[in-house]
């Protein structure tokens, strides 16, 4: 192994808080060689991001204490003066963050944001900096970089935005690239492109890459070595093949087992042909006005859902996959009639509810429920879990005296304890919050639950628990699910049939085994090809240290 670029020894980060000291990172040691990709893997809260931020002096939380050593090129990073760190940041140690939309300044043009970094470190004119910015945008694969240079972040797609972030990080030819969940916010096909880009740039520049991720699929695609973090410590470290083939730590084994796979077991094939459908969507179209005319009528409309026909039988799970902007969530809201379709029909239990009024829908709300993606944003932060789950019961006319006991039974049913009932949403973990969201949806014994990305915001191990819970509830209560996800691996694991959506249309709908084994539509095949590998991808040994 060549001389390491970065050598971290005994790094500890502690937060002094009212409830005592929290050790976020506890005696962490690692080495990063030139040209190497080291993946730092762990669940949320394991200390990955805190590690990265402390290395480049960007951990600004009040009460944070950093101890230990991180040597880079003969200088010590921990406790280095801000001036010195500022010179290194962007110039030698560059960072790519998770969410490219929030990580780019919304009111500055992208080329200016790239050029700004060049100007901060290089003695160049504003014009030269801009030229370099445009060249960088071209290098990271942005088409028509001269034109895109003047775009604002919101005018670019998620993938383009992350390319801008990467262009920025590369602008001063850094020796180390720290990528914190660089593809987590992106669609699967875009993720594949970004991973490919990082791989190419690593080979081209010889920079060391510290890749922070919770996704073993990303690790398998990109990493040379893996360090698995758990509660602030590295519990296992090694060459990627070894960690995948012979995981030693129980934490690693648990994480690996929880990763949904394209080659894992399918559910038992079931037929629903004889049962009448619970939900029937026929030629559903939903469009929104894009631009208003002078007097506010007419104008352009955009079709978010464009002629979708789909039915779900009692007890069946239909998976719905597609990339962001394909119309999945609009379809979900239309299915439970939170939105009214522009054309087509929605029937529940054989009854046409396409144009049902709010009052007519009220009794149906008990049967038609929805669980949202973001367990942080979809629970009222000013209500306790007890009240969140109890509200539909009270609205459904359950006597006041019975609400309490039923809430406790529901919480128990989704794997929470009675003690959780009095917690506020912010006192619950992501998984616990999603359980509260599910308990709320189940409160009035629905027959159909639309699950809109129910596990996307959760760690893989929590994801697996929630998926198990949903399966159990379906078996016991005979629920029907419309399960929406951008993750083809998750959908495969839970669905009886799968619909693939693109640009508002369902391009393919087939039983799960058929769709994954023999995709009929080229887009389905493209999505499947982009799914990260579940085993390390074979790469040439020349890039290894």
């Amino acid at each position, binding site marked *: 192994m060549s001389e390491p670029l970065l050598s971290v020894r005994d790094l500890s980060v502690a937060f002094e808080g009212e409830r005592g000291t929290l050790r976020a990172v506890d005696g962490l040691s690692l080495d990063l060689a030139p040209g190497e990709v080291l993946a730092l893997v762990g669940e949320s809260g394991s200390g990955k991001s805190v590690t990265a931020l402390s290395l480049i002096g960007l951990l600004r939380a009040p009460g944070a204490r950093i101890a230990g050593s991180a040597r880079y090129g003969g200088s010590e990073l921990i406790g280095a003066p801000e001036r010195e760190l500022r010179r290194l940041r962007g110039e030698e140690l560059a960072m790519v*963050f998770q969410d490219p939309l929030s990580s*780019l300044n919304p009111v500055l043009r992208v080329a200016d944001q790239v050029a700004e970094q060049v100007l901060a470190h290089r003695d160049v004119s504003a014009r030269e900096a801009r030229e370099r910015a445009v060249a960088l945008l071209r290098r990271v694969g942005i088409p028509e970089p001269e034109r895109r240079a003047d775009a604002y972040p919101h005018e670019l797609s998620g993938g383009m935005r992350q390319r801008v972030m990467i262009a920025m990080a590369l602008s001063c030819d850094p020796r180390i690239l720290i990528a914190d969940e660089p593809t987590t916010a992106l669609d699967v096909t875009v993720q594949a492109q970004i991973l490919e880009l990082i791989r190419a740039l690593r080979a081209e520049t010889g920079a060391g890459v510290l890749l922070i991720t919770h996704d073993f699929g990303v690790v398998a695609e990109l990493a040379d070595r893996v360090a698995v973090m758990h509660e602030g410590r590295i519990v296992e470290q090694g060459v990627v093949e070894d960690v995948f083939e012979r995981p030693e730590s129980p934490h690693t084994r648990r994480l690996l087992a929880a990763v949904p796979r394209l080659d894992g077991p399918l559910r038992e094939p079931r037929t629903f042909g004889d049962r009448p459908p619970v939900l029937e969507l026929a030629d559903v179209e939903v469009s929104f006005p894009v631009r208003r005319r002078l007097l506010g009528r007419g104008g352009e409309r955009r079709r978010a859902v464009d002629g979708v026909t789909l039915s779900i039988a009692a007890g069946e799970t239909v998976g719905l996959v597609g990339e962001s902007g394909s119309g999945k969530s609009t379809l979900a809201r239309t299915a439970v009639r939170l939105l009214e379709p522009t054309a087509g029909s929605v029937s529940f239990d054989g009854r046409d509810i396409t144009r049902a009024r709010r009052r007519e829908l009220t009794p149906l709300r008990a049967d038609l429920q929805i669980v949202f993606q973001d367990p942080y944003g979809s629970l009222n932060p000013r209500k306790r879990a007890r009240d969140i789950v109890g509200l539909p019961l009270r609205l459904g006319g359950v006597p006041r005296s019975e609400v309490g006991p039923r809430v406790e039974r529901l919480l128990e049913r989704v794997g929470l304890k009675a003690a959780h009932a009095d917690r506020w949403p912010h006192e619950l973990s992501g998984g616990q919050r999603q359980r509260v969201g599910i308990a709320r949806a189940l409160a009035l014994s629905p027959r159909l639950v639309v699950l809109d990305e129910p596990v996307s915001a959760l760690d893989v191990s929590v994801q697996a628990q929630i998926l198990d819970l949903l399966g159990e509830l379906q078996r016991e209560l005979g629920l029907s699910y419309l399960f929406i996800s951008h993750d083809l691996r998750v959908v495969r694991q839970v669905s009886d049939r799968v619909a693939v959506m693109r640009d508002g249309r369902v391009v393919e709908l087939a039983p799960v085994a058929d769709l994954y084994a023999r995709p009929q539509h080229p887009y389905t095949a493209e999505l499947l090809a982009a799914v990260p590998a579940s085993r390390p991808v074979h790469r040439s040994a020349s890039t290894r240290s």
Partner: protein
Amino acid sequence: MTAFVARRLAQMVVVLFAVSVLTFLIFNVIPNGDPAARMAGKSPTESQVEAIRAEWGFDEPLPVQYVRTMEQVLGGSAISYFTQLNVREEIVRGLPRTLSLAIGAAILWMAFGVGLGLLGAMRAGRASDRLLTLLALVGVSLPVFWLGALLSHYLGFKAGWFPNGGYVPLTEDPLDWAYHLVLPCATLAVLFIGFYSRILRSNVLDTMGEDYVRTARAKGLSEREVLRRHVLRNSLIPVVTLWGLDFGAVVAGGAILTEVVFDLQGVGQYAAESVGQLDVPPVLAVTLFGAFFIVVTNTVVDIVYAALDPRIRVT
């Protein structure tokens, strides 16, 4: 953009019509509002009042009176019932005074509001921040007529540092013009400085927590550049729009008390006196002018907002 401005202009016509009708009606239902009786002076005879009524057309149906008065107001020929002075000329005379006061105060409150807000955000939680919070609270709580009278009395009358009210046109003597405006502008600005510094402080603190500010630091920018290019610019956007709206409101009547305290003889003071005399033509004219100015500043604010924040489109 053109459609946006056209729609706003159309809305403005509706607003101005509604405002004028309401103002006109209020003065006709108000007790003791009969202009003829008031114009006739103390203890007039019935025939005198009748004569005035016939001469001024107060005996005609209300819609006819409204249309005639509006024609005069919009045509610039309306005259005050009591001073017999041309209303347009009076407004034209008062406007530079009101605008001088409003512009001076707006510059002061923006500069100090931003400066103190930024200082508070930089020192958030420390003693100096708490002191600024307290001062802002005091500033917001001081009534303009009290503060104005106090400053005018002690700094103007007693100490003789500043003129004791009055106005000198800019074209006559620019230095004296500015000198006369110091106290009124400061008085009017104090309240806004309190508000603006609080708003800016919390905007800056919110923006500092944004991911793109972390990105800016990760680029290796100096703290000053991070603050200027990424924090301050984004925090200022909502404040700038607020500034436009407040400026419009001040010109359209928010400066009345300050004008009266310092005897600036601006449009606000003119309006206040006319209202006191139930003098319909000047009140109508000033009200319409105020409504017009508010609609215009609102439209400008919306356009500027869209220019400052590329995510916003005017529709």
